Every structure is written in C-alpha cells, then in structure tokens.
C-alpha cells in the first residue's frame, strides 16, 4: 500500500496546519514535543526557560507552516531549526556572552558516546565519520555550540583556551566538515 499515514508524517501535519486544519498542530506537538523540548533543555539547561522557548517556537511553527518546503529538507529538521533558534535567542537574551563555569554543563555526554548515538542512517553516519576525523577539541567545540548552545566565550572557558583560538578552531572545523561531507 502507498504511504497514507498523515498522522505519522510531520510534513503532512505542517500542510494541515498551514490550511487551518483543526487538531493538526496538537498532533504535531504530541508527536514531536518531547524531541523538541529535549533540544531546548540541552541548550538552556533550565526547564522553565526551555518551556518558554518551545512556546515561542510552536507559535512560529503555527504561523510559518506554509513556508515549509518538503523538497528542501526534512520536516523534522525544519522543526528542530525553529526550536533551536528560539532557544538560542533566549540564551542570548539571558547574557550568554559572559563566560561561565556552569556546573550543570556537561550533564549530557557531548563526546564519543554522543557521536555513537548518531543514528545509523547514512547521512548521520557520514556526519559521525567526518566529526570523528576532526581534532578532539575542535569536535567538542562544535558539539558544545550546536547541542548545548554555548557561545565562543563559554566554549573557551570550558576548554581553557583563548577566545581567539576557539573562534579560529571552530571556523576551521566547519570548513573541514563541509569538505568532508561534500
């Protein structure tokens, strides 16, 4: 049988939301809420702030659902980008540029074990291999920024490196990553 499971398909639910279909946003929230809230918590390390970020993100999702283009990417990635941006905006508003020694940082693994969790899907596998080929601190900086929402200054404090060095490393790491994934 062809694929006719809109309940399980975030892209279809986004179409439904764009057309004002009652219940579509709730179904999307039920299906994706825990995944997206987990991302916001990882960035903000504060459940109340993460709830604020997810609240703002869901309102954006509701009003921008019509802009999602299934040809340009996965719906799950589109949703994640909106939630990450909402969480990062909040983190910035909370004064992220100050280097901190946040003791709760690093509760979740960001190193080797985290990479193991990258799904076996081909795209994830390639990203994992390319990240593994980077220098360890370079890789750690990229993961701390992307998964945990750390600023350059916070990464520098955590890795005990000068700010300029961290900025240059991350930039170089991204260029290598792009080359490796190409």
């Amino acid at each position, binding site marked *: 049988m062809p694929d006719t499971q809109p309940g399980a398909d975030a892209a279809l639910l986004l*179409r439904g939301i764009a057309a004002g279909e009652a219940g579509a946003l709730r179904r999307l929230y039920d299906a994706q809420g825990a995944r997206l809230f987990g*991302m916001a918590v990882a960035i903000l390390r504060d459940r109340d702030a993460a709830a604020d970020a997810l609240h703002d993100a869901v309102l954006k999702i509701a009003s921008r659902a019509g802009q999602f283009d299934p040809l340009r*990417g996965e719906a799950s990635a589109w949703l994640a980008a909106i939630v990450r941006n909402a969480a990062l905006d909040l983190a910035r508003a909370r004064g992220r540029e100050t280097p901190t020694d946040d003791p709760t940082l690093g509760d979740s693994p960001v190193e080797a074990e985290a990479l193991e969790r*990258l799904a076996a899907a081909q795209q994830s596998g390639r990203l994992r291999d390319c990240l593994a080929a980077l220098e360890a601190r370079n890789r750690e900086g990229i993961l701390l920024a992307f998964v945990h929402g750390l*600023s350059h200054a916070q990464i520098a404090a955590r890795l005990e490196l000068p700010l300029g060095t961290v900025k240059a490393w991350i930039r170089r790491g991204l*260029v290598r990553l792009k080359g490796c994934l190409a």
Partner: protein
Amino acid sequence: MIPSDSEALDALAAEHVLGTLDAREAREVSRALPTHPALREAVAAWEARLAPLADLAPPQAPPPELWGRIEASLGARPEAVVTPLRPGRLWKAWSLGSTALAAGLAAFILLRPAEEPRMMTVLLTSGDQPAWLVEAERGGLRLASLNPRPVEPGRVQQLWALPPGATAPVSLGLIPEGGQASVAPGLVRPEPGMLIEITLEPPGGSPTGRPTGPILFIGRLAPVRGS
C-alpha cells in the same frame, strides 16, 4: 553587514546554524534571510549538514501545562480561527465499514494489468479514516468516494493538488455531488509525492484561490508497488 565574498558568506551561515553568532550578528542574519537568496541557500545547506546533531539531545516530555499556554497564545491571535471538523456518529459507522472497502479497491487496482506507472492514494480524514480513493489515470485523476456523506449545508468541497516543491496548492475544481469525480489531464501532472486534499469552502469555491477552509481529507500520491 552580510559579506558578498562567498567564502565569508558561507562561514557566516555555518556559525548562524551552529549558534555561535552573538545577538547582534544573529539578528542581522535573521533580518537578511528573507531577501538574500545566497545566504538562505547557505543556511539551508548547513542546516541539512548538521541536522542529525540536534537529536543528540535526549528527548524530555514538556511540562503538561505547556500545551494550554500555547493554545491560549494561539487563541489571542486573530488568524488562528479554525473551524473544527467534527465527524458525526453516522460518519464514524460509515468509516468502519470503509476500511475493508478501501483494501478491496486497492487490491483490485493492484491486480489490473498496468500500461502506465500506477499512482494512487487514499485520502484520509483528520482521524485517519479512509474517505476517497484517488487514482492517476492518463495524465488526469479519478476519485471515488469510499463513504459518501452529505456536505455541510451551504458549503462545497474543493479539490487541491500540491506538487512536490510547489509552495501553493493548485485548485482542481469543486467536487460534484455524488461519489465520483475526475480531473481532466493538463490541469496538473500527477507525480509521486504530490499532496492531494479536499477542503471545505464557501459556495463557488475558495474566493482567494488558496484553501480557506479546514482540510477534510488529505493524502499523498505514491506509485503502486508490484503492479
């Protein structure tokens, strides 16, 4: 300032997606995105590259009261007015019987000799009940209702198609009374992945050329395997 040099532009896009831009830089990028196609493309490419990393964060159930807060905020916005779709009890009874009917029709299509790649879908209600069988045929579409039910008085049902990659659905016309409808070839080229939906609209159809009412039924055209 958004750099014009492509290497610097790509570096900016990468750090925007990574999240390391400061508040001012991030705001500049967000403002430029809608009017800067090269920047938008670079950001989309980096989002695709790094997307799997987002799922390294362990999922956590959001606080139970959060949905209520979201609903309250949505209710405060005028554009969020939607007409709820409430299938009646009779409709539910029809639906139950129709699942077997849908399976039978699908098997019938599968067993027919195919001279062209077959595509079909079953349009479902918001409750995942099968409602219409849609089959691509000689460049057009043929629709058969799996459970005819009366249309809400004073409203009509309008058929739409959204080809993959298109940003706006194309109207394929109003669904006539009775359980059958067909779309002539040329109006839209059926292709795998095309969304097909039926919305509830005012008499004469949507006045805006875009769906304005709730989606009654929706499905995605897919090749019939094994034909």
